[in-house]
């Protein structure tokens, strides 16, 4: 750019161009326009998960973030139209394979509303036990990946190891570590084996009394983790309600909302557990709140094991291809990530006419561009994962 082009004394960007400095100023002004860099934190990235986040950065500050999902879209809702009520069970649980009982819980409740069947009492308790075991297993795996994202490898190793206790219980009950397919419309698939209650109590005592205090000491009272996460990515209460986040993210911003308390389903209104909230709304609150929920889940499992009817059916015998009268049903449960709803429309045949999954991860994802606006690039993994998103669930 020729220095003779700019007349003397022209102010650009509130800086008056002085003779002699003209050439350098012009270069830096040209560079200003090229200051913004578009990065693709893509599907192949140690800190991205199954989706892509396109960020526009100005040096170290994120100016704009745009999540790009769709890398695992498998067409669950369309596939439901080609499968009967019971055939739907294996593929419905795969959006979140380690939290499968909760996603199936909503489906089974909606399907039972449509088919008009009453689940036996023992099955209700077994379902709650499975749902809470899965909630604990999901939260521990979420904590493990949070460890990878912040670079705390012990935070990856300890939760995945302790998760094996709960996965063992699920394996004992259903035959598979994850994707149990244990909850089906009508109850649960089979009864629990004989030593289940004792093993469960043993694992729960070990985890609650020995491991959880250690987690707090090493992970959450850790000054490095606190420095990284306190004050980072603050989501205010009004923003949380406006954006529509759910689950532990909503509770970390100060809103006392848990579907198990607001719209209790099956036996949750007879159980005694607390719902914790926090006013801070930062990543630290979002990281530590799920562990409090884990404590409550342990309480719930203990109460269910004590109050369960000793004998009884666990399943209502259905016809091979049960037909539902035309109608619709919508049921919502509290999954590990938040409120998960399933909406089923039946048209009288053995297959559903329409099945809609309303997932919490998508609602929590909507907070991501808002939180990343103005954040530092190095804080992206922590903010992203503290929002309790499971990317495959977003796309179903």
């Amino acid at each position: 750019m020729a220095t003779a082009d700019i007349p003397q004394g022209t102010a650009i960007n509130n800086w008056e161009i002085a003779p002699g400095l003209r050439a350098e100023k012009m270069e830096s002004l040209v560079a200003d326009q090229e200051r913004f860099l578009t990065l693709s934190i893509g599907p192949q990235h140690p800190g991205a998960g199954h989706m892509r986040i396109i960020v526009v950065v100005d040096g170290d500050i994120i100016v704009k973030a745009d999540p790009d999902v769709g890398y695992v879209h498998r067409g669950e809702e369309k596939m439901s139209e080609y499968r009967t009520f019971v055939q739907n069970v294996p593929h419905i649980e795969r959006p979140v394979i380690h939290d499968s009982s909760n996603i199936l819980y909503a489906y089974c409740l909606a399907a039972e509303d449509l088919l008009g069947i009453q689940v036996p009492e023992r099955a209700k308790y077994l379902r709650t036990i499975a749902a809470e075991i899965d909630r604990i297993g999901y939260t521990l795996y979420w904590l493990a990946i949070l460890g990878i994202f912040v670079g705390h490898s012990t935070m990856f190793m300890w939760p995945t190891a302790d998760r094996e206790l709960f996965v063992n219980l699920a394996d004992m009950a259903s035959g598979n570590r994850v994707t149990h397919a244990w909850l089906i419309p009508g109850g649960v698939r089979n009864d629990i084996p004989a030593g289940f209650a004792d093993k469960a109590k043993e694992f729960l005592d070990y985890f609650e009394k020995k491991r959880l205090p250690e987690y707090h000491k090493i992970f959450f009272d850790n000054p490095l983790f606190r420095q990284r996460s306190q004050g980072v990515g603050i989501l205010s209460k009004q923003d949380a309600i406006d954006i529509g986040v759910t689950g532990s993210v909503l509770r970390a911003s100060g809103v006392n909302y848990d579907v198990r308390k607001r719209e209790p389903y099956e036996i949750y209104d007879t159980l005694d557990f607390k719902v914790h909230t926090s006013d801070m709304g930062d990543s630290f609150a979002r990281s530590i709140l799920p562990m409090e929920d884990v404590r409550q889940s342990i309480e719930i499992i203990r109460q269910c094991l004590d109050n369960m009817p000793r004998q009884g059916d666990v399943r209502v015998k259905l016809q091979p291809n049960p037909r539902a009268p035309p109608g619709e049903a919508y049921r919502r449960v509290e999954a590990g990530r938040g409120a998960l709803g399933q909406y089923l429309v039946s048209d009288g045949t053995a297959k559903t006419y329409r099945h809609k999954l309303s997932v919490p991860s998508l609602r929590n994802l909507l907070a991501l561009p808002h939180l990343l606006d103005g954040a530092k690039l190095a804080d992206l993994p922590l903010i992203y994962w503290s929002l309790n998103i499971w990317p495959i669930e977003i796309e179903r």
Partner: protein
Amino acid sequence: MQLKLPTAVEAGAEFNALVGKLGDLLVRALDKPLGYAVNWGRLYSIWPVHLETGCCSIELGAASSPRYDVERFGMLEAFGSLRQCDLLLVLGTVNRKMAPRLRMVYDQMPEPKYVVAMGACSITGGLYFDSYNVLPGIDSIVPVDVYVPGCPPRPETLIQGVMLLQEKIKRSKVKAI
């Protein structure tokens, strides 16, 4: 007419041919032990690429956990750039949006590289075989070395798959170092 070369060049040419023949002999003699050494070095330091395509990634996480610990068998943690990795673990469903990216990732890896198809979805499309968006197996995009079936495969199955891959590496012919 026979071309008469100057004597110095003739002697140099014969010397070169002799060295060439000796070199051939050396490579042939050391081919087996050298090849074995090179393969041995590659067996126990397999770096997987951090690309998660589907839900089997949870069982990969469980396989890296202290209970199953695939690191003691030689498969290290997925960490860092894909330009320094040699194993592409395709974890689960590959759909149409992901397929070109999978191929791009495979192309960027340096030789020698291996592909393990984990889970039924990457072998034949699995549970989602009739979905509109899912590829019926990744054979059409990348060449696969080991297929690990399961939905999801238990961590022990994945470890067995890695061990089969190690057998394959042991038997492979070393073309370049």
